[in-house]
């Protein structure tokens, strides 16, 4: 028993070190968001004169409110579209007898891992030609295509694990294929849908290079681009940046906490079980 206790002690110390490794930079970000203009240039661990002026500055002197709204609109629309399209595609690839399913799944995996730089220039030209630069729909379309492949992977892996008996009885009851998917399959695949949803939302919320390329006005700029362009050429307003960052982190942190299990199982089934 003593040996076991010693083992636990070692594990707990290691766990505390890991937690510190992860949490300290995050703490530094939040603490710095509350430092005033003078203290931001000091390495004080606790803000000596805590202030909320950085937060009001982000909203009043910079257009952070607009960026927040833009990111929310784009991320929500992308997530809804990806889930709607991805659910049916994932179901078909899991259950229905189509030729070339292996090839499609392999291609989707490769596309989801492709460096985004390979698509930005043609995407820019494509969206410019249809007049969708600097618009919500342009970014939503790009993100939907970018994030669908991985979402289809996650969803398909969930559908494969659902017993077929349910669909059979729905079919016997005379439900059409669309109704079967929406009313019978979807409720059972809910954890998978949450996982795909959280992954898509996080990806859309954090994406940088496409947003940087497609939107060059403040009106449609999203948070990552907005924060990257804060400040002038010679000064970086770190207090304001971290105040904005802390606000931007909040919805994602809540989402991850609420759907923690779904995210972890997504990493499990989406990536490993394959």
């Amino acid at each position, binding site marked *: 028993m003593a040996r076991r206790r010693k083992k636990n002690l070692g594990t707990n110390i290691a766990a505390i070190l*890991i937690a510190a490794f992860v949490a300290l930079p995050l703490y530094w970000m939040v603490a710095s968001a509350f430092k005033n203009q003078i203290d931001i240039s*000091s390495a004080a661990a606790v803000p000596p004169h805590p202030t909320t002026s950085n937060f009001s500055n982000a909203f009043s002197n910079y257009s952070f409110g607009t960026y927040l709204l833009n990111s929310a609109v784009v991320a929500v629309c992308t997530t809804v579209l990806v889930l709607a399209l991805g659910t049916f595609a994932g179901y078909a690839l899991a259950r229905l007898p189509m030729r070339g399913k292996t090839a499609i799944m392999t291609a989707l995996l490769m596309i989801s891992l492709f460096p985004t730089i390979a698509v930005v220039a043609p995407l820019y030209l494509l969206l410019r030609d249809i007049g969708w630069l600097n618009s919500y729909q342009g970014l939503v379309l790009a993100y939907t295509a970018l994030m669908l492949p991985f979402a289809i992977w996650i969803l398909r892996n969930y559908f494969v694990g659902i017993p077929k008996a349910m669909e059979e009885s729905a079919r016997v009851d005379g439900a059409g294929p669309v109704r079967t998917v929406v009313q019978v399959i979807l409720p059972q695949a809910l954890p998978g849908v949450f996982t795909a949803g959280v992954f898509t939302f996080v990806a859309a919320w*954090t994406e940088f*290079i496409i947003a940087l390329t497609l939107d060059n006005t403040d009106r449609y700029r999203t948070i990552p681009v907005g924060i990257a362009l804060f400040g002038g050429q010679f000064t970086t307003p770190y207090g304001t940046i971290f105040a904005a960052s802390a606000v931007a982190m909040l919805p994602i942190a809540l989402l991850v906490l609420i759907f923690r299990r779904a995210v972890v199982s997504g990493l*499990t089934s989406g990536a490993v079980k394959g």
Partner: protein
Amino acid sequence: MTVIDTPGRLDAGGRPRRRGELRRSSARLGWGFASPALLVIAAVMIFPIVFSIVMSFSHVNVTGNGFQLSGVTGRNYSILFGSPRYWHDLEFTVIYTLCTVVVEMILGTLIALVLERLTAARGWLMALLLMPWALITVVSADLWAYVYNGVYGVFDAIFNAVGVHDLNVLGTPTQAAIAMGVADVWKTTPFVAIMVLAGLVMLPGEVVEAARIDGANGWTIFWKVRLPLLRPALAVAVMFRILQAFGLFDLPYVLTHGGPGTSTESLALLGYRVLFNDLEFGPGAAVAASTAVIVLVVCLLFLKVFRTQVGEQED
């Protein structure tokens, strides 16, 4: 055997359907369900990739309202391959990718082993680990730029306290690359840890138990039994990380601006700068397309080697 093959169903006309006909109609249904998603992906992801490759082999004339492609040429690639900057950026991206992925895999596996044995507060630690993963990369780049700042960064303050002065982390090529690697490791190791943990949890307990009964100690069990069994999970994590790291863009764009000089410039950053700052669409497309081809080849190699883990789809 799929559900649609259930025999004895009647169609609208009351005739019993033949199996082949049923199969065909449900295959049609499958394509009907899948095609909206696949069309979007084809139009907005695959077409641009192909277009990048075409553009990289074309004369690109920039005109007032855009540009025109005319004629096939190898000029873009000869510009690229004749440029020391391209070779430097390729070398940097490859070395950076290999180093960060090796460190992430080792640290990630260690963290996963701790998580597996942890009894209290495991869920909370997992939630905490997901935070860097979900953080906007631009934000983490700003955060680390602040930490490394040569005038008031906490990093210098710590080193000053132990007697090391005048560090200029982001101003020295090797140190800047390492500093960026640390920021990368901080953000992505938790992701690796959770993927590896998933693999650990799925290991068959009996095998480890059998080794224990045979008198193997914990160390031997880890190296000889668990690690080999874990290989597929590790391989998938390695593939994900290598390919993501190879597209490195956000971090150098914000943290080091590719500098000092172009010492920490990744291929993606080079491609972006050539395309959108220099407006050299031909050579820019060549950077983008050649990066994509490298990723494609690495991906295919991985899939070939680990076919059984990643590729077995047909049921």
